[in-house]
């Protein structure tokens, strides 16, 4: 645990839906679970993508230099690949929602899942340091949700999502939203296995946030500019904010929405539907074209 800011990842708890994980409150994810490579089924070996470790001795006789060449995020990324395989096998579109605290992420999500639930399966993994408030808000809509409490951790990691999925069966052809811990810095680096990161920025924040937090806006494929119903009361320059997002990430898409009024939701829901359809091209082609 870091004694400067209190950040650390030694107290991760994951609540189940109806059937809590056997290893719930008293058993946080261990270092072996978080930092070890995903085992390859049946082989008893770990993911060989880390490469073979070569040994060569030089320097002082007492010390041996061992070549490692291992990515710091390799363990996380191997878990992310496992999650991605699971999403592919179940035909699930997974979106990782990232933002600073207070951008209206949960309110936006509540409205979004209520809309999507009328047409296809939807589920949610909620990440927060403490409390199950957000998962409770999602479950109140009738949509299944699992809360992951990261303790002092400032972001979700792929093995936490893998654990949460044990308590969250995915129905085929659905959408899974992962609401990350409110933080515009750390979640940028950690692949959870999602198809896209969606950054949410509210108009009560600064237009220059994409420039201040470029890692996150570069990692995102879509930016939702939320709380547009408040624009008449603010000096926020929407065009400047969009231009700043494109400076950091020229290919990013930007949609203006209000989770309160529903403005812009048609475009947001259509964006999601296009991605769901892309996961099932065969079914879509079958519907769209008359076959001889």
């Amino acid at each position, binding site marked *: 645990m870091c004694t*400067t800011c209190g950040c650390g*990842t030694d107290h991760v708890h994951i609540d189940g839906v109806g059937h809590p994980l056997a290893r719930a409150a008293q058993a946080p994810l261990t270092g072996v679970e978080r930092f070890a490579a995903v085992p390859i089924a049946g082989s008893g070996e770990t993911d060989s993508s880390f490469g073979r*470790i070569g040994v060569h001795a030089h320097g002082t006789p007492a010390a041996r230099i061992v070549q490692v060449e291992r990515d710091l995020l390799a363990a996380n990324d191997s878990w992310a690949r496992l999650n991605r395989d699971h999403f592919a096998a179940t035909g699930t579109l997974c979106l990782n929602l990232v933002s600073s605290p207070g951008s209206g992420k949960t309110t936006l999500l509540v409205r979004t899942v209520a809309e999507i639930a009328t047409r296809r399966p939807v589920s949610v993994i909620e990440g927060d340091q403490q409390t199950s408030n957000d998962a409770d808000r999602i479950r109140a809509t009738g949509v299944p949700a699992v809360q992951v409490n990261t303790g002092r*951790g400032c972001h979700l*990691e792929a093995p936490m999502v893998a654990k949460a999925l044990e308590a969250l069966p995915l129905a085929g052809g659905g959408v899974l939203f992962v609401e990350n811990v409110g933080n515009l*810095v750390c979640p940028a680096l*950690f692949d959870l296995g999602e198809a896209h990161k969606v950054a949410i920025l509210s108009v009560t924040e600064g237009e220059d946030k994409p420039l201040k937090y470029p890692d996150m806006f570069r990692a995102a494929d879509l930016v939702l500019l939320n709380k547009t119903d408040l624009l008449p009361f603010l000096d926020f320059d929407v065009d400047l904010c969009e231009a700043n997002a494109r400076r950091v990430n020229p290919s990013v898409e930007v949609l203006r929405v209000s989770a309160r009024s529903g403005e812009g939701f048609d475009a947001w829901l259509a964006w999601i539907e296009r991605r769901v359809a892309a996961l099932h091209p065969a079914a879509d082609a079958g519907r769209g074209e008359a076959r001889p």
Partner: protein
Amino acid sequence: MHEMSLAESVVQIAEDTARQNGGSRISSVFLEVGRLAGVEIEALRFCFDAASRSSLAEGAELVIERPDGRAWCMPCGETVSLSGLADPCPRCGSHQLQVTGGNELKVREIAIH
């Protein structure tokens, strides 16, 4: 402060490697952390000290190489240097850049005894 996670990962990788190679103590850990990798080096060093306590890497020296940021500029059609992700091409001012270096984040080697 994802540096704590990264420091824990450094310790885990270093300890695993040391054990697989019969080491009982790690005296140095050589890292490559690119200048565009989004890592605060002082925070990483601080967290490494905390995360390595009671491990084989306790007290180990952390040697960090910092590759410069590089990007492929589409309008220029060549590789340019880049000091920040929000920065424009230093030659033509365009933001049509594809980062090609400076985002490294890995353990290169360790010294064991």
